[in-house]
């Protein structure tokens, strides 16, 4: 299902985007060059999110910048998660020892898992490559070889990311902790690779980033082309990562890290078992997931640091971009620094939704791993459980937003950049609203599907909503379509409160989702089927 979703979703995106770009380049005053000139400023501004932006005056260049690099980022993220899951998830479920006792060697298991995941990745990449080639052919600019080579680099980048996830997971004892560490590492590498020219000597880190080498091979971009050495480096990175993972897996105990010496200390006295922090499910769950939250909070703070720190570098380019001003929704007289901070605050919505998706994953695991059975064998009701989950979600969202707000305030103050306290308060309130709505949506999907399909559903919706925003902007689709998007409902809270309809949408989703999640869950079982 995942493979089909990737190919179908990516294929549609390719077809729409290629057609839209082809049409836009033909109709735009000044053609492709005129279009490239109009978006160059915006591309500069969005450098932390996507870079490099070469030859935007050509269909191959623009398609690479907009679609291929989007696939590159998201497929690498997907592959990293798969890499973490490959072994650690089996341990978390307690099935690794069963598999190993069946006679399978550790290396054999790792090889089989890697080959299986590689096959899945290969299918996705080939499927997407075909849709890229078909889209180009559809608009009369066929380049099948270029499409295949471009997506091969994307696939190799994902393979290196997979190996990174696999290797990191051997050095972090829990699946959730490994997931957080690997994802934060990958995103950090992504941003640093995009910003390498602005970060001085730290920029050298790009050479260990798969994104740098993938960006060196862009077959559809005239004047850049594909690079066999870059592809070989990506392959070498993948081999090295899998090799490091294999080494670590061979040397470590199950459920531990290679340096772990085991538990040797026995205590014969009992400090109190019942502690205040464990009296409520929400506080107990928060305590249990503190490591994961500790990964989200500093990652958000680091992003805020990077974003606010780069303000001085990019505001001039923003000032020259009418497109970007329009996209940000500021009035004609809005200060560009204000709009820059505002856009950063808008991105908090994406972080919050991603956080709720990770919570949904944990809720499915609660059911699958039997924790739900233990919890609901007490007087705890479904309603009580959901209330605890929403409380925990809101506390997590609050911590993440606080990390953002405090970092922005501190960095802006240090850099002498003005910041708006009321805007940050609005951002905090709206983040809590969207966090509640996201958690309610996630809880409903988890109650309904009782499987990780819930997380997939949320991710598909979020990516769809994000893409929809762009389509509405670029293709001049009707504005009401954006009403289906959480990003639109979130608005630009740093600038102003969103309108009542948007606020209402978030509140209705939160309220209806909360009630629906309990009602649906109450009809189902409390144990995994």
């Amino acid at each position, binding site marked *: 299902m995942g493979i089909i979703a990737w190919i179908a979703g990516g294929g549609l995106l390719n077809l729409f985007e290629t057609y839209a770009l082809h049409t836009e380049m033909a109709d735009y005053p000044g053609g492709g060059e005129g279009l490239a000139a109009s978006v160059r400023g915006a591309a500069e501004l969005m450098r932390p999110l996507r870079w490099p932006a070469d030859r935007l005056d050509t269909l191959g260049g623009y398609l690479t910048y907009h679609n291929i690099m989007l696939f590159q980022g998201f497929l690498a993220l997907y592959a990293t998660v798969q890499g973490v899951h490959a072994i650690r998830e089996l341990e978390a479920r307690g099935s690794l020892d069963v598999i190993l006792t069946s006679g399978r060697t550790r290396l054999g298991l790792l090889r089989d898992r890697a080959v299986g995941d590689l096959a899945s990745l290969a299918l996705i990449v080939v499927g997407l490559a075909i849709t890229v080639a078909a889209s180009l052919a559809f608009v009369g600019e066929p380049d099948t070889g270029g499409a295949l080579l471009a997506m091969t680099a994307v696939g190799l980048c994902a393979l290196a990311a997979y190996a990174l996830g696999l290797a990191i997971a051997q050095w972090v004892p829990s699946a959730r902790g490994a997931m957080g560490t690997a994802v934060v590492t990958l995103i950090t590498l992504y941003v640093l690779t995009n910003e390498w020219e602005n970060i001085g000597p730290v920029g050298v880190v790009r050479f260990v980033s798969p994104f740098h080498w993938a960006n060196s091979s862009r077959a559809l971009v005239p004047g850049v082309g594909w690079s066999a050495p870059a592809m070989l480096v990506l392959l070498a990175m993948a081999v090295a990562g899998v090799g490091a993972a294999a080494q670590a897996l061979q040397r470590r105990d199950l459920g531990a890290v290679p340096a772990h010496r085991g*538990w040797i200390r026995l205590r014969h006295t009992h400090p109190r078992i*019942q502690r205040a922090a464990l009296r409520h499910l929400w506080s107990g769950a928060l305590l249990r997931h503190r*490591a994961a939250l500790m990964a989200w909070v500093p990652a958000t703070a680091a992003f805020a640091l990077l974003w606010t720190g780069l303000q001085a570098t990019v505001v001039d380019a923003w000032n020259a971009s009418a497109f970007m001003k329009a996209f940000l929704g500021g009035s004609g007289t809005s200060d560009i620094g204000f709009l820059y901070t505002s856009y950063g605050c808008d991105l908090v919505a994406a972080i919050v939704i991603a956080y709720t998706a990770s919570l949904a994953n944990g809720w499915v695991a609660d059911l699958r791993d039997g924790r739900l059975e*233990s919890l*609901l064998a007490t007087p705890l009701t479904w309603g009580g459980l959901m209330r605890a989950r929403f409380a925990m979600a809101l506390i997590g969202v609050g911590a993440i937003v606080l990390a953002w707000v405090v970092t922005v305030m501190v960095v802006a103050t240090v850099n002498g950049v003005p910041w708006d306290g009321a805007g940050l308060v609005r951002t905090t309130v709206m983040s809590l609203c969207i966090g509640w709505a996201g958690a309610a949506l996630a809880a409903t999907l988890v109650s309904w599907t009782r499987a990780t399909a819930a997380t997939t559903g949320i991710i598909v919706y979020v990516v769809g909503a994000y893409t929809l925003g762009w389509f509405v902007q670029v293709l001049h689709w009707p504005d009401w379509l954006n009403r289906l998007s959480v990003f639109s409902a979130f608005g630009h809270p740093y600038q102003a409160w969103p309108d009542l309809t948007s606020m209402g949408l978030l509140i209705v989703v939160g309220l209806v989702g909360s009630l629906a999640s309990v009602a649906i869950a109450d009809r189902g079982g409390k144990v995994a089927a």
Partner: protein
Amino acid sequence: MATQQESRTRVSMVDVPVASPGQPSLSAPADAIVCTGVTKDYGEHHGVFDLDLTVHTGEVFGFIGTNGAGKTTTLRLIMDLIRPDHGSINVFGHDVRREGSTVRGWIGYLPGELPQWPGVTAAHVLGLLAGLRGGVEEAWLAGLIDRLRLDVHRPYRELSHGNKQKVGLVAAFMHRPDLLILDEPTLGLDPLMQREVRALIAEAVAAGATCLLSSHVLAEVEVVCDRIGLIRDGRMVRVGTLADLRELRAHRVTAIIPDQPMPADFAAVPGVEEVSVHRDTYACTVRGDITPLLGWLARHGAIELDSRELTLEEVFLAQFRSR
């Protein structure tokens, strides 16, 4: 082997009173659990079908069946963890579906499949479950942990299966429940700990609790239970007291007879079944009065005689095979 009565009179090793002074007492009706016509159909003949089951207040009821017979499904239905397709389930006169939260407050439950709790210690798990229940006495909890020799400060993930089972048992007993529902309670425990768990059950029942436990180890059930129910393919095939079931008991007799009389004569002795003869070794199962067999053996010059009572397990297995 300790008898049921011996187990029940065993002195508690926990130095706190067995009665639960701090808890509101449940004025229990005569029947702790009443299941009427309960069906949960998973398809392809999996599940439980038209199940009628009554567990009397104050008794230990053993639920016996092979793997996949429907034991765990029945216990989960009683816990309202899964819902029946039809039929009703009452615990102490209360419908488990409509008053699930209240009912679960009276129950101590050990699941058949142990949960995973990554990233926390066993103390965290027990503290959380105690917090959700409320009113758990710290001294009683510490006593249970000591008694089962559990190191609760180790990461839960690193515990052996037996130690995870102990965590589940502590969670089931920690609030001194009026009803214990235990799915394979001694699974994975060493013999000493198995005995300790049987003692805990006996003490809880002596203090007024009721216990429904499932097992596929009949020898264990024989020691602990007052009544036993046999389930097969999701249907209750027999319910009875230990005394009822002991009527089914038999002896396996093996004798050496150098004169090697005719096997047909041996098989014709009243009460003799399942005859096997190998040279001078004569073996059979005897039900009821053994006197005719002893007379026949004496007349034919038996020089060695070995007799042992068949366990309930052997009797029931024979029953299952015959059906």
